[in-house]
């Protein structure tokens, strides 16, 4: 009877025929769908990984150079009459003395024989305006050094620093056949050679001229199509310039004048460096950048700075000085501690994130102190004590809504309430913390409620069963068990607050603030706002600082999220 029942199911019911073609097709379709879904997942992961890698690589390549800084280590003679004339060893006086002449003289001593105001000024500009800070600190710490010579690192200016990081020009130096004779050791001189060593350079320059003439003509042709009066003048100008260039190119014998739009050519001879201004095949006229030791005929080299001077921030004169300092071994490359020690500055080489770091710490401290107690207690009340009625439903819905409100709205609220109504100070970490607190509070309440809900009711029942009151059961047992989840939610909320910019702009935390804040009511800025401020500045060096600050901010976020994950793993319980 059972056999019959198995082979012939009751009418209306059918058994799956796993051997049929349709069943086979169904199986294959199922496998295909699954494989397709997996493939979507893998493609999405790969695309994400590529974008993330590109993003991080970009930030790192831009930002990492900002963690390196260059200084000139020089023996600086410190004359007592300049620094501390009365010899009172008064730190205030030592600190306030004018160190510019001291450092300038040290530079001049390192490259002797510089003449002319322009050259001297260029030499002085190699150093940062804050170059003497290290020297000043040394002298204040040990006034006995005054009157002697101090070996101290002098901070280079941002442009010099960038040059040394390789954002300058490539330098090609090649030996030549003949001997050359300079006519002087400084100022404008001529150098004659015994062979036609400049012929190759002359050809190269002619070719560059032809190139430029070609480009100008093309540009003129392009503009002519617009055919308006204003453009017509420019077209004529371009055509005239191109004709001029072509004339120079067509006449191979003529002496060539070099300008900022062509690669710079220099002659290195007798320990000096001459920048060529006029060039013919057997001799040049030029300007001495680094003084020559003598005028005697000697072997020499042609040096080319391949990037035209007009396209560089660091001119030929400064490049020559920096190359000389490099040869002297005076350039010191070190980690940029100043970046973490200094506040903001208009000078890129002196600007640091200390102010923003401290501002961030103070702001987040206020946020934390405000949010954790209020958020956790609110969650405990709503989850465990509040009677469920329309009012608590409304509150719950609105807490969820608040978590989705755009952050700029909280900024406006902070501006209206904290600044205008309560009259709290602008730009202060206190107000920033309050505003971010409003922003983070809903997140923490939601996370804390979820964590409380996740604690099994059996624990609460156990506590109630031995005679604990409701409050005792919640605070002795449920809350401690929910704490890891609450902590995770809090850290993620704080990480959100850490990266928040818009509401802080509204309450004025975007001012240029040099001093590191010391209290909750002093003007301050925070890391993301610092990034925003620096990203707006035109200096190349600030672009690197921006990227470097992004790296620091991301590190902070990674650390905080890592902590959240660790807490979750460490204290996670299974029932």
């Amino acid at each position: 009877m059972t056999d019959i029942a198995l082979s012939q199911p009751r009418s209306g019911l059918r058994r799956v025929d796993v051997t049929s073609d349709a069943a086979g097709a169904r199986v294959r379709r199922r496998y295909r769908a699954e494989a397709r879904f997996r493939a979507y997942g893998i493609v999405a992961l790969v695309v994400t990984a590529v974008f993330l890698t590109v993003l991080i690589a970009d930030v790192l390549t831009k930002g990492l150079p900002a963690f390196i800084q260059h200084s000139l280590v020089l023996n600086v003679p410190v004359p007592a009459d300049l620094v501390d004339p009365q010899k009172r060893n008064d730190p205030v006086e030592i600190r306030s003395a004018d160190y510019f002449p001291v450092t300038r003289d040290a530079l001049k001593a390192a490259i002797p024989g510089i003449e002319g105001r322009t050259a001297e000024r260029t030499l002085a500009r190699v150093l940062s305006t804050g170059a003497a800070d290290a020297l000043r600190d040394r002298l204040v710490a040990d006034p006995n050094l005054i009157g002697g010579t101090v070996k101290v690192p002098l901070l280079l200016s941002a442009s010099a620093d960038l040059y040394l990081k390789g954002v300058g020009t490539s330098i090609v130096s090649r030996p030549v056949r003949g001997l050359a004779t300079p006519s002087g050791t400084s100022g404008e001189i001529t150098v004659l050679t015994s062979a036609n060593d400049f012929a190759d350079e002359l050809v190269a320059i002619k070719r560059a001229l032809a190139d430029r003439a070609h480009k100008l003509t093309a540009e003129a042709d392009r503009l002519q199509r617009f055919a308006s009066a204003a453009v017509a003048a420019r077209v004529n100008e371009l055509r005239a310039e191109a004709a001029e260039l072509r004339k120079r190119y067509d006449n191979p014998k003529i002496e060539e004048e070099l300008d900022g739009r062509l690669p710079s050519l220099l002659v290195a001879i007798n320990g000096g460096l001459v920048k060529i201004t006029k060039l013919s095949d057997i001799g040049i006229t030029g300007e001495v950048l680094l003084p020559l030791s003598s005028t005697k005929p000697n072997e020499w080299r042609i040096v080319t700075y391949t990037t035209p001077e007009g396209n560089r921030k660091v001119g030929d004169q400064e490049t020559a000085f920096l190359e000389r300092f490099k040869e002297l071994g005076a350039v010191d490359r070190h980690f940029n501690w100043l970046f973490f020690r200094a506040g903001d500055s208009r000078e890129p080489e002196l600007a640091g994130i200390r102010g923003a770091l401290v501002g961030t710490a103070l702001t987040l401290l206020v946020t934390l102190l405000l949010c954790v107690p209020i958020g956790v207690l609110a969650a405990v009340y709503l989850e465990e004590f509040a009677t469920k009625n329309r009012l608590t439903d409304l509150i719950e819905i609105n807490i969820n809504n608040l978590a989705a409100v755009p952050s700029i709205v909280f900024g406006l609220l902070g501006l209206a309430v904290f600044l205008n109504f309560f009259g709290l100070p602008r730009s202060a970490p206190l107000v920033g913390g309050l505003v971010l607190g409003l922003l983070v509070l809903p997140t923490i309440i939601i996370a804390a409620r979820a964590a409380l809900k996740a604690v099994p009711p059996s624990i609460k029942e156990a506590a109630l069963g031995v005679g604990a009151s409701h409050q005792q059961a919640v605070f002795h047992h449920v809350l401690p068990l929910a704490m890891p989840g609450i902590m995770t939610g809090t850290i993620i909320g704080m990480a959100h607050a850490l990266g928040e910019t818009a509401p802080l702009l509204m309450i004025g935390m975007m001012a240029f603030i040099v001093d590191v804040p010391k209290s909750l009511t002093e003007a301050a800025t925070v890391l993301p706002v610092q990034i925003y401020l620096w990203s707006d500045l035109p200096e190349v060096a600030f672009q690197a600082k921006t990227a470097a600050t992004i790296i620091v901010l991301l590190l902070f976020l990674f650390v905080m999220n890592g902590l959240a994950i660790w807490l979750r793993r460490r204290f996670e319980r299974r029932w």
Partner: protein
Amino acid sequence: MVMDMPSQSTFSARGAVAGGKATKISARGVNVYYGEKQALKEVNVEIPDKGVMAFIGPSGCGKSTFLRCINRMNDTIASCRVAGRIEIEGQDIYDSKLDVVQLRARVGMVFQKPNPFPKSVFENVAYGPRIHGLAKSKTDLEGIVIASLRYAGLFEEVKDRLQDSGTSLSGGQQQRLCIARAIAVQPEIILMDEPCSALDPIATAKIEELMEELTESYTIVIVTHSMQQAARVSQRTAFFHLGSLVEEGPTEVIFNKPQDKRTQDYITGRFG
């Protein structure tokens, strides 16, 4: 073993009226509603002092609900409403003047699934005495914890692991830890809601053995799905069906000569 327990003597004296036959818990006309749904209908029962009272019946018959009425654990369910009168030693436990926390200190509970606090074995037992201020000193508290664990027959097994987490014990040990936790505050009544349903037969045997010892000092009310267990441990049995108490009486009578057809059907395995 009983001598170890603090305040044991006062306890025994109170319950010893009429040689253990006095009524400890009496329920009259108890109706329980979950929202609109009625879970218990007109339950009347007298539970005598000392000894074990077993509630049996098919799933969803209301026996657990009635059990949870006795220590007002149903208060935690917002939609639950209890009507009628339940008295312990003549005192109405739903009296608005009665403090529910003090009631639960008198009526301990052991749950279906072992639910030790995720704290140390010691802390699990010490929690009750601590919140009720039973221990005068640290050594006093240790004495209470050790006595409770010993009474629950667990001390020898965990004496070297008092600082280990309660959740690291085996299922049977956890349930005995929960019993130790319940008796650490010296309740008069212990409610057990299917205490062995998650345990293997060996652990079950240990718990049943323990219950037998506990009857000397406590009134035990147990809900069970196992009729063998009810027959083994209880002196009286009540049969619930569809929210009503169908029949109540001495265990031998219920199992051998039930008055009601439904009881007969249930214990012979025709339904449930």
